[in-house]
């Protein structure tokens, strides 16, 4: 893991962002029912539409628009929202911070639940615990977020009144209330993630338990406890770093629905609103920021993995 390796990894990240920016721009450029129309709604008149289109630069060739857009983004300027007339960048980043709070909480909860369950299932392979864990896992990966969210809200909030159904309170303003409001969305996201991570954790643990070095450790006469905790767990946990990083991709997609349902003003909902109102700068900025978040997370995960795993470190 040399400096060159770092540099290469960073280059890849930059390449990712560039490819995504082009892709997002290309897709949004050919959106039908152009932005000016949707901006003006029922009150559009031809002359007003024309004026607005010129102002938004919608008439220029695509590559010119892309160049202008990319240049502005490079300087940190994501443009002005067509919908709210506010600068898109700060809005999206603020939204992202709220989404990240949700995402990070969900990942922590997931790890706390999924890792022990996965390991236990692997250690009790084929027994009742394992079957139970597998059933939960199947259920988790087979329920779409909107179903889980609805059912959880129906039970935990409307029927049993344990948690607030929706809404967002910044934990910075009121910590307790903020956490209470995060509980349901975090639970929903976690349920799906737990299913996934648990399955991975189980199969990783099984693989590690089958490995030669675990056999060697056992035959060295180490107690089972030491074998599992010192030798197996560590190696089984390492790939989870990468799995979690890849799940961030799912997570970022999933929060679109979660935030919509739970009224969390995060980047997912910002994107959903932007897409329904054809707010081009917001769509472009939101999608780019989301993809960049994913790229950065993965780069960091790769680096963390390389740092933690001597196998990679000295390749």
């Amino acid at each position, binding site marked *: 893991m040399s400096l060159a390796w770092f540099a290469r990894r960073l280059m*890849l990240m930059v*390449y*990712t*962002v*560039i*490819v*995504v920016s082009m*892709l*997002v721009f290309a*897709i*949004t450029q*050919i*959106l*039908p029912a152009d932005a000016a129309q949707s901006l003006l709604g029922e009150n559009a008149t031809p002359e007003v539409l024309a004026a607005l289109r010129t102002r938004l630069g919608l008439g220029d060739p695509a590559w010119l628009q892309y160049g202008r857009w990319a240049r502005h983004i490079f300087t940190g300027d994501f443009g002005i929202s067509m919908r709210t007339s506010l600068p898109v960048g700060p809005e999206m980043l603020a939204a992202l911070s709220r989404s990240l709070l949700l995402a990070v909480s969900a990942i922590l909860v997931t790890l706390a639940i999924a890792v022990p369950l996965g390991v236990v299932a692997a250690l009790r392979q084929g027994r009742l615990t394992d079957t139970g864990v597998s059933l939960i896992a*199947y*259920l988790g*990966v*087979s*329920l*779409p*977020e*909107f*179903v889980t969210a*609805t*059912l959880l809200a*129906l039970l935990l909030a*409307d029927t049993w009144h344990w948690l607030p159904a929706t809404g967002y309170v910044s934990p910075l303003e009121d910590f307790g209330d903020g956490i209470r409001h995060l509980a349901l969305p975090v639970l929903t996201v976690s349920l799906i993630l737990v299913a996934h991570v648990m399955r991975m954790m189980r199969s990783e643990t099984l693989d590690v338990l089958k490995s030669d070095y675990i056999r060697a450790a056992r035959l060295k006469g180490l107690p089972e406890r030491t074998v599992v905790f010192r030798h197996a767990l560590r190696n089984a946990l390492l790939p989870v770093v990468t799995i979690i990083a890849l799940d961030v*991709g*799912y997570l*970022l*997609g*999933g929060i*679109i*629905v979660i935030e*919509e349902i739970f009224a969390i003003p995060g980047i997912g909902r910002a*994107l*959903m609103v932007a*897409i*329904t109102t*054809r707010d081009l700068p917001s*769509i472009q900025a939101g*999608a780019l920021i*989301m*993809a*960049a978040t*994913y*790229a950065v997370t*993965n780069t960091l995960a790769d680096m963390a993995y390389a740092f933690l795993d001597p196998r990679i470190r000295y390749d």
Partner: protein
Amino acid sequence: MTELFIRLMRKPQGFVGIVLLALIAAACLFGPALAPYAPEKIDFLGRFRAPGWQNWLGADQFGRDILSRLMVGARSTVPLAFIATFVGSAAGATIGVGSAYLGGRTDEAIMRTIDAVMAIPGLLMALLLVSTLGNGAGNAVIAIAVAFAPGMARVTRSAALNVRNQDYVKAAIARGEGAPWIIFREMLPNVMAPIVIESTIRVSFAVMLFATLSFLGVGAQPPASEWGLMVADARQYMHQAPWGLIAPSAAIALTAIAFNLVGDGLRDALNPKDER
């Protein structure tokens, strides 16, 4: 083939999965014939009728029979998810095998670009595409296929790269075989197993993604009885008529579970562990 099927049926998850799939297939094939009511027949007096002898799974806000809508809706949910996965998998597999065969810098460039595209979450990609192409089931299928292709390309490519390094492929190259023979006769048959396993599991994602798009209002459109759309409609009345929400949710979950189970079963059946 039959041997594979027997192996699949012998595993509990394979067995349950196959039985569920058979039920779903029956609903797709004979749903409209078996449904007790026309799926779009409205009944003013039957609005929000609870499950009972008249409507086994209850009725929705238009008094439409939920069971009938589910049975007919299977046709507008599962086959579409299937098609989307198939198209996405085929495209992804072609890119993956091709990339592995070409190797070197071309492979590197293709895969790095695929990685980059995968930085856009699937749902977001699908949303962007659907909003470009226009709402509707057909466009949702295209969007899901496009969203799936990069992932499939990556899975296929890693399997194909493995095969590419096998001596039988090298032997074919050393013999002077042409590229089409090597790709389609030597490599592809040997990467089919991971492709089939991955695709099967992805059908369940497709069912869910399709339902999610419909839920967000950009997939199937009313009055279609697509399951995700049914959930979205029923959500408004979930406190009045929770059965309207639960029935299609359960249908989605069961379908997804079925494909997951069969996918896992196939994984076991196609890679039989050696018995010492």
